[in-house]
């Protein structure tokens, strides 16, 4: 506290409270609406008071959009994407930082350029690759007049849901950043003690990277859980549906009964897991965000 400033303090609190209402208000509306009956949720003006209908609405939503299957799929997808990203980016960063090879620049820049290629602009051919993983090889061979008869279709599978999303520049840079801060003596000492690079990676680097991994895990879980476009395109079999795809199925039908209480209860179920992760692991989440963007 530098000086006593009662008016400025009051103003600061007012700003913080307004910010709180603006950013948290939508949550409160969803919470209240999800626990009301249909006439209550459609009342104008809307009442922020929660009622006791949440369980009933939630189970109606659960049945309407088959959220059980979707929840399992979303969990599997988010877990696989997170694990894949945390593991593969560590390996790539290790190759970039700890080896004396001209290839490291190739590795770095090929990862970097992916930042400029969001899924939305390459969506059709990515879909084509997922439909047949050997399509690139076939096209190249086809150029030389060769044909092969193998095909590996990833559509409607967990591999297809996750593999195209696993490559990560953010994760690679986060590890790279961290590896660069380690003192050179660490690798020297390991070498003096007779440890090879592989052993150094598994026995020293990975244990040291624990906080880094936790930060990356939290941001990537949220990323994986919130994927929308990719599952929407490649999943046609309902048994592979994810929660994000179920959102539109939760809407009341256009000319039907406006049971928004059920829709809101369903949306709440879909929103809850990443919010809980960010709330509980906020320190790591923030660290991951801030340090990966440098």
């Amino acid at each position, binding site marked *: 506290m530098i000086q006593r400033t009662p008016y400025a303090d009051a103003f600061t609190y007012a700003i913080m409270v307004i910010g709180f209402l*603006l950013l948290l208000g939508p949550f409160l509306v969803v919470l209240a609406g999800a626990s009301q009956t249909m006439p209550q949720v459609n009342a104008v003006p809307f009442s922020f008071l929660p009622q006791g209908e949440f369980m009933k609405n939630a189970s109606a939503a659960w049945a309407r959009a088959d959220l059980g299957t979707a929840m399992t799929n979303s969990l599997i997808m988010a877990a696989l994407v997170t694990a894949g990203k945390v593991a593969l980016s560590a390996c790539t960063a290790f190759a970039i930082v700890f080896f004396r090879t001209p290839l490291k620049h190739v590795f770095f820049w090929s990862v970097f350029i992916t930042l400029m290629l969001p899924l939305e602009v390459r969506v059709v051919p990515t879909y084509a690759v997922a439909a047949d993983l050997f399509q690139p090889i076939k096209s190249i061979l086809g150029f030389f007049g060769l044909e092969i008869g193998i095909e590996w279709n990833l559509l409607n599978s967990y591999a297809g849901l996750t593999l195209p999303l696993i490559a990560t520049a953010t994760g690679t840079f986060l590890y790279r950043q961290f590896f660069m801060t380690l003192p050179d003596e660490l690798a020297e000492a390991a070498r003096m003690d007779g440890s090879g690079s592989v052993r150094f990676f598994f026995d020293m680097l990975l244990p040291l990277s624990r906080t880094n991994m936790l930060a990356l895990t939290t941001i990537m879980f949220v990323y994986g859980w919130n994927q929308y476009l990719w599952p929407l395109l490649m999943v046609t079999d309902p048994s592979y549906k994810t929660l994000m795809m179920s959102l539109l199925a939760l809407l009341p039908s256009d000319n039907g009964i406006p049971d928004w209480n059920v829709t809101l209860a369903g949306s709440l179920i879909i929103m809850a897991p990443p919010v809980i992760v960010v709330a509980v692991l906020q320190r790591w*989440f923030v660290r991951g*965000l801030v340090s990966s963007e440098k």
Partner: protein
Amino acid sequence: MEKRAVFKSWWLPVLFALPQLVLILLFFYWPVAAVVNWAFTLEPPFGGAAEFVGFANFKEALSDPFYWNSVVVSLIFATVGPFFCIFIGLTLALAVDRQLPGSGFFRFFYILPFAIAGPAAGMAFRFILSPERGLAASINALSPDLWNPAKYGSHALALVIIIFIWKWSGYTFIFLLAGLQSVPRALGEAAAMDGAGPFRRAIDVQVPLLAPTLFFLLVTMMTEGFVGADTFGIVHSVTGGGPNHGTEVMVYRIVDEAFQGLNYSGASAQSIILIGLIMVFTFIQFRFIEKRVHYK
């Protein structure tokens, strides 16, 4: 920065980098090569090999008024959205950074909206700002259709931008707060000694020192607004590009044209233009990061 103590092996680094490189080749570079190929070729309507057509696909895309409509919509989305995200994030960060008792409580909550997927937030806001129910219905009670995103394109665009702002304000808040905390306290104290009150200190000391972070956020948020996953997700789940193309942002138009219109060549030409745009943004950002100011 180079490491001195490095391991010498040519095949181990390749082995370590390979898994991710294979995924990148398969799902990034190959598809982009295909996009480039499609952008300059056209498949004959009755089958057969694709023909090279030069810049015809680009000319066709650029002569379509709906394309320019999507450019304008994207421009509005990617300037208004980031402006408010940064303004709200900055205001809240300046308030929280005064470290009054209880500000930790607020800081905890401000980041939570960022955890929610754009489409899920969209679903909530379809209710909250619906013309018939929720919070905005009271406005329509004054006079019908004062607010109706289902009918007016401008209202729908405002709606999707509000959702974007709601989700991303917490993100800018985090970066600006981190930036403020790295400004040495002594600067603020010195200004206070010279008689500057909290507002003057905020405007004349803290905000100018935040310039690098503000610029970084401006570029990041604009990129996010043009091509971010949330931009597509929010538009797709809330308005579907309508009403009357009023919310058809560039990414939505590309995906829609490819999968609904099956016009791969047209969509690819638009993709190339968008990739060019991202490259410009990334370049600007990188040029600036090189010169990034550090306070300590």
